[in-house]
């Protein structure tokens, strides 16, 4: 078993190196490498190895509210990402219990994927050009981005309602401060040390709206239902499922699985369970 996984790793590394060297024609390079006499258990047939193993190994966050959070009492990891992963396991293997969750952080997730420790990453991972050089991404499964949290009934319905004198609460040193300054230069921005302080200030009426990533804002809205997230995200940070480069068959079946989840309404159900209201126009 051990020997086999080392061999798999070896193949994978050789494969990666080939992809790296081959550059644009990476797909052809991958196939060429697969024919070099090594066993066909490398990434080229990632989907098959998952099927023969009978288990999908997924990297998720354990510390992120709403998306992947380990409940200290029960030990269960729960969240939007986790449910999406389970639904995908059902699509790929026919059973949502055929899944193994592994904890990843933003720092460890790509190395773990490329190390074959996990098959896919479903961990609040924003699709960026930079990351696309290292991993492949599925279609967008969550439209994250900077948004606004307001008290229910607030006249602020979107970024356009932020006028001169509107007090916008944010967290010191975050990119969300720069973004809101660019989008609404007339706003008065009040910066706090952390999200808890900023949210307390919003609750106390010290500001009109709180801005940061919508994933965090949804978490706050769950904490206190007197508040809601309004408007479409005004920055574009789409979350994707990361798959090892070159594992085209796995990528295709993940995308097919996502599409099925959308078509069957299962996606909307998961979305409503964690985020609140059903996603608009998707």
């Amino acid at each position: 078993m051990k020997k086999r996984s080392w061999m798999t790793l070896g193949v994978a590394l050789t494969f990666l190196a080939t992809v790296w060297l081959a550059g644009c024609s990476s797909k052809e390079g991958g196939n060429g490498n697969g024919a070099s006499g090594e066993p066909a258990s490398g990434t080229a047939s990632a989907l098959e190895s998952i099927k023969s193993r009978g288990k999908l190994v997924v990297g998720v966050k354990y510390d992120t509210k709403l998306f992947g959070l380990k409940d200290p009492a029960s030990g269960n990891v729960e969240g939007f990402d986790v449910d999406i992963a389970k639904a995908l396991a059902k699509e790929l293997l026919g059973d949502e219990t055929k899944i193994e969750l592994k904890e990843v952080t933003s720092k460890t997730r790509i190395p773990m994927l490329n190390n074959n420790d996990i098959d896919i990453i479903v961990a609040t991972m924003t699709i960026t050009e930079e990351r696309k050089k290292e991993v492949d991404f599925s279609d967008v499964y969550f439209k994250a981005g900077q948004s606004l949290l307001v008290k229910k009934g607030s006249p602020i319905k979107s970024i356009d309602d932020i006028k001169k004198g509107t007090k916008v609460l944010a967290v010191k040193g975050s990119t969300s401060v720069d973004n809101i300054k660019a989008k609404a230069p007339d706003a008065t921005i009040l910066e706090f040390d952390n999200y808890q302080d900023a949210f307390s200030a919003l609750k106390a009426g010290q500001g009109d709206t709180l801005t940061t990533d919508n994933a965090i804002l949804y978490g706050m809205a769950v904490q206190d239902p007197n508040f809601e997230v309004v408007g479409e995200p005004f920055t574009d940070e789409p979350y994707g499922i990361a798959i090892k480069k070159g594992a085209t068959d796995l990528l295709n079946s993940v995308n097919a699985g996502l599409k099925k989840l959308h078509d069957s309404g299962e996606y909307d159900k998961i979305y409503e369970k964690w985020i609140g209201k059903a996603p608009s126009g998707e």
Partner: protein
Amino acid sequence: MPDIAIFTDNLEIYMKGFGNTVWASVIALLGSFALGTIIAVFRISSVKPLRWIGTAYVEFVRNIPLLLVVFVFYYGLPSVGVTLSGFICGTVGLTVYTASFVAEAIRAGIMSIPAGQTEAARASGLTYMQTMRHVVLPQAIKIVIPPLSNQFINLVKNSSVLGVFAGFDLMYYGDQVASKTYATFDTYLFVAALYLVLTIPLSLAALQLERRLAKNG
């Protein structure tokens, strides 16, 4: 060697914060001196309820962290319908907090004047207020100056609490510069230098005043 460009490039931001820190400090200094004197008089008053109020104020306020005092004003007052900005809450909190220490310093100064002097003054027909004004306080002030100047230097430094409540002071803008430049150490080195610009003259002035009063005394 700190990079002076961090200071010069962000001079405007630093100066905005510096100005607000000066304002908050001056207001809180005057306010806490006035309030502290009143509390001190309460604490040594022969009227029992006043003494209770004075003691309760001092023991309550000086024994909780300044951060929480301001916290009450910033996050607590809105629940009774009063919403004040971070600058005002910070300055008022600083005033209330420092007043408790000022009161103790003044009380200690007054207590150090032998009771015989008060008895003699009252026996000569002076009222309580007159005794205070003409006999006790002029002597007490000399004793009080060193501990008071300590409190006021602390006050200037404590004004950095405004930074936590979006009070636009030096610390608040210092955080902004640090997160913009990523030169955390250098950024706060200049913040520290600006605090020294305020506190060192304050120290020297107190020393000067002490000497002059000693001579005239």
